[in-house]
Every structure is written in structure tokens, then in C-alpha cells.
């Protein structure tokens, strides 16, 4: 596949790893933000190709993982008590709320449907005019244009039975919160490539400056990721903290203006709670008040019961880069992809699921 295969070239990957080893003189801790990058790093074993001094820690870049339990509870309520057709991305279905997950709601008779795109959920609404259809709109900036476009399409086509349950989070405020934490260990970032495809790179310069942390916009294939690591290590070694773009084939500095306009027409920035991390000011999107008819929270006047913590699960510390999945006492025993205690064990892009899938047979190393 063009623009994929050439970025998986094993010889090039090894040469990049050697180049990184060649410039590394100190120990550095670098966080990749996006769950897609986490998955690729663990799947291809990229961290194991790096010199010992370089530690990659895995950030909160899995929207499924940071969606609060109480919003999953609202989705369950919509499917069971309010009898709506609840459409969702597949990896959201098995994330435990404070009670049950959506797949269990489906087993109990709820009309829960997995879709590929929010635009497909609008089609479901058109095909079922007598039913209420709600799309569970989770995501980072990357997914916001598609979720917003579903509302615009419903509006344009007069689809009056469609609304979205929103749990939208933003990357830059989370990076700030991580860097400002007293136990922060992260010295440099691989920024999430596709988030930057939408929003551009201008938001990151003040963060790099303020916290003295280099930020390298990075893609998702092995060559992309190691190029990002190389550029980040080079900056750290040279004492620089700048924003660089190592994913220029997909990211322009200004981002995608058309996508930003669509997002701004439907969403506004709001405070958001992140599962495992807590409330981060101005770190998410909610539907604009003038489009309240498309906002499932308002349309169905959903209550929001604050959920308690996730028990044994240490996902918050993992997503802040303070711990790794194997540091969790429940990892691989009480918590597995079949019986997850926390969201990062469910989603393909959760750090725990990636470690379980690709690293579960290894013995723990300090």
C-alpha cells in the first residue's frame, strides 16, 4: 500500500535506530501522545531497538480510555431506559462504565449498533425515522470534524431524530497538565500526527517554550516514529526545545482550515473530565448551545452521576507516564482483554491491551 509499505522498511528502521544510538549520550524520557503510536511502538518492538537511555512512555492518547465512566453510564441509559438506537465505534462497546458496558446493554435488549463512521449513524437515523438515534461521539481533534459533519448533515437533510452524546478531548491542554504535574518525568513529546493534521502546530510552540520540552509532530509507521524519536533526542541532546514537524506529508503548520471551520460551527471548547486523570480546564468540546437539539445530553436531559474510581486499575498513572502496564498488580491476572478492569485494557490503542497482546509472555524487567 502506497505511503504505508515504504515506512515499514526494516533496513531503514534499523539504520534510524543506529542513528539514534549514535547521538544519545544521556538518559531521556519521551512520551508519545497518540494511542495509535503506542500500538505501533509495542507491535513493532520499536522501543526495544532504542539505546538503553531512551525510555518511551505512553500518554493519554486513547479517547476510549479517557472517556469517563459516567458518560458510558449515560450511553447505557440511552440504550436501555430511553430505548434509542445507540450507535458507537466498536472499541467503545466493551469499556466498563460504573455498572455495565454497552455490549452487556445490547445483550439485555438494548439496540446498540457498531458503525464505522458517524456519517453511517446519520444514515441509520434516516432509515429509522420513528426511532431516536444517538451517536456516541468520542474522540480527539482528529475525530471532531467527522462528528461535527454528522450534525451538519443531519441538519442539512432535516434528520430530526439524530443527536450525539459527546466525550471530546483536546491534546494540548492535557500536555500542559502532564508537564505541570509535580511527578512529571516526560522531557520531550512525539505529538499526535493526525491531531495536528486537523489543528496544525501553532498551539505547541508556547508549550515547548514554557516547559522547555521539545515537541516533534510524528506519524504512525515505524520509520515515522523513529524519525520523531531521532529529532526529539537530537533537540534534547543539543538543549533545544522547539516544535518540529516530522510528518510533513500529512501536516501543514496551519492545519486543515476546512476541518476547523466545520468543528467550530458545531462545537465549543469546554472543561472536560478525563478518566484516570481528572478534570482538565478547557480540554474538550461540547455541542454549541444553539445546536442543543443535536446534543443528546440536553435532548434527553441526562443526569450525570459522578462515578467512583476504578478500583485496582492504575490507568491514570500509566497515562501520565509515571508507570508502565506491568507495574499494575492486576495486569494479565485480574485484568485481561476478556475481563478488563479499566479502559486501557479494552481498546486496541490502550497501552495495557498492547502490552498484553504483544508482550504478555515476557518476564517483567526493571
Amino acid at each position, binding site marked *: 500500500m502506497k505511503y504505508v509499505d515504504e515506512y515499514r522498511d526494516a533496513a531503514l528502521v534499523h539504520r534510524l535506530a543506529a*542513528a539514534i544510538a549514535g547521538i544519545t549520550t544521556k538518559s531521556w524520557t519521551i512520551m508519545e501522545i497518540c494511542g495509535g503510536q503506542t500500538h505501533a511502538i509495542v507491535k513493532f518492538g520499536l522501543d526495544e531497538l532504542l539505546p538503553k537511555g531512551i525510555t518511551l512512555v505512553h500518554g493519554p492518547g486513547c479517547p476510549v480510555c479517557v472517556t469517563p465512566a459516567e458518560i458510558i453510564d449515560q450511553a447505557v441509559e440511552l440504550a436501555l431506559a430511553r430505548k434509542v438506537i445507540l450507535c458507537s*465505534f466498536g472499541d467503545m462497546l466493551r469499556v466498563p462504565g460504573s455498572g455495565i458496558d454497552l455490549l452487556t446493554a445490547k445483550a439485555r435488549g438494548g439496540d446498540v449498533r457498531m458503525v464505522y463512521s458517524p456519517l453511517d449513524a446519520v444514515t441509520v437515523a434516516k432509515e429509522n425515522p420513528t426511532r431516536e438515534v444517538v451517536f456516541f461521539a468520542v474522540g480527539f481533534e482528529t475525530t471532531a470534524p467527522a462528528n461535527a459533519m454528522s450534525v451538519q448533515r443531519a441538519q442539512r437533510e432535516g434528520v430530526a431524530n439524530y443527536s450525539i452524546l459527546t466525550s471530546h478531548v483536546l491534546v494540548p491542554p492535557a500536555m500542559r497538565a502532564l508537564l505541570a504535574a509535580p511527578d512529571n518525568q516526560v522531557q520531550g513529546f512525539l505529538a499526535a500526527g493526525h491531531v495536528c493534521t486537523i489543528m496544525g502546530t501553532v498551539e505547541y510552540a508556547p508549550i515547548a517554550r514554557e516547559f522547555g520540552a521539545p515537541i516533534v509532530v510524528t506519524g504512525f509507521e515505524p520509520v515515522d516514529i523513529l524519525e520523531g524519536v531521532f529529532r526529539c533526542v537530537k533537540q534534547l541532546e543539543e538543549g533545544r526545545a522547539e516544535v518540529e514537524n516530522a510528518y510533513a506529508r500529512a501536516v501543514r503548520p496551519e492545519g486543515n482550515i476546512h476541518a476547523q471551520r466545520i468543528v467550530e460551527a458545531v462545537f465549543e471548547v469546554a472543561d472536560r473530565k478525563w478518566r484516570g486523570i481528572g478534570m482538565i480546564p478547557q480540554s474538550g468540546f461540547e455541542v454549541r448551545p444553539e445546536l442543543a437539539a443535536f446534543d443528546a445530553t440536553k435532548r434527553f436531559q441526562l443526569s450525570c452521576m459522578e462515578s467512583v474510581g476504578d478500583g485496582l486499575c492504575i490507568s491514570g498513572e500509566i497515562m501520565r507516564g509515571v508507570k508502565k502496564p506491568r507495574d499494575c498488580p492486576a495486569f494479565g491476572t485480574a485484568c485481561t482483554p476478556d475481563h478488563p478492569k479499566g479502559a486501557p485494557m479494552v481498546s486496541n490503542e490502550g497501552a495495557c491491551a498492547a502490552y498484553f497482546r504483544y508482550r504478555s509472555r515476557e518476564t517483567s524487567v526493571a
Partner: protein
Amino acid sequence: MCLAVPGKVIQIVGDDPVLRSARVSFAGVVKLISLACVPEAGVGDYVLVHVGMAISKVDQQEAEETFKYLKQLGELDGIELSDGDNTSS
């Protein structure tokens, strides 16, 4: 979740800015994809697609620049990087 897959535009469908779409081929699998965010994409272009929406046109020139940069990197570090690695399939 933020996964985006490159695909080739094979046919444009519709002119309305909200509804404008394209048939996009992903190594032979064809899906109808919204072009609302990438109106400049035409037949033959590669677009990055995320949950049914094209979010960017892949910039071929920048892709080539990356491989030039990596080649240079290899040379600087005394690592041989033949043109054979500069693949484009």
C-alpha cells in the same frame, strides 16, 4: 482511534460542499468517503481517511523530502542508505 489510512481517489461524487464525497480505493477496497474537509482533492490524489472522512491530501513532494532527509541522516552518521530504500510502491 486517530488511525487514518491513505487511499486513492477514484471518483468524485456530488458538488454540494457538505455532501461532497469520493469513492476511495484502499489497496482495492473501495469506500464512499466525505471530501468536505479536503475539497481540493481530485481523481488520482491520495487522501488520508479517518472514520469516513478525508482529513488531508497526502503531499507527495513532502513525502519525497522525508526520504531525502533520511538519506542525508544516514550519510551524516556514516550509515549507508542506498536509493533502493527510497521506495515508492
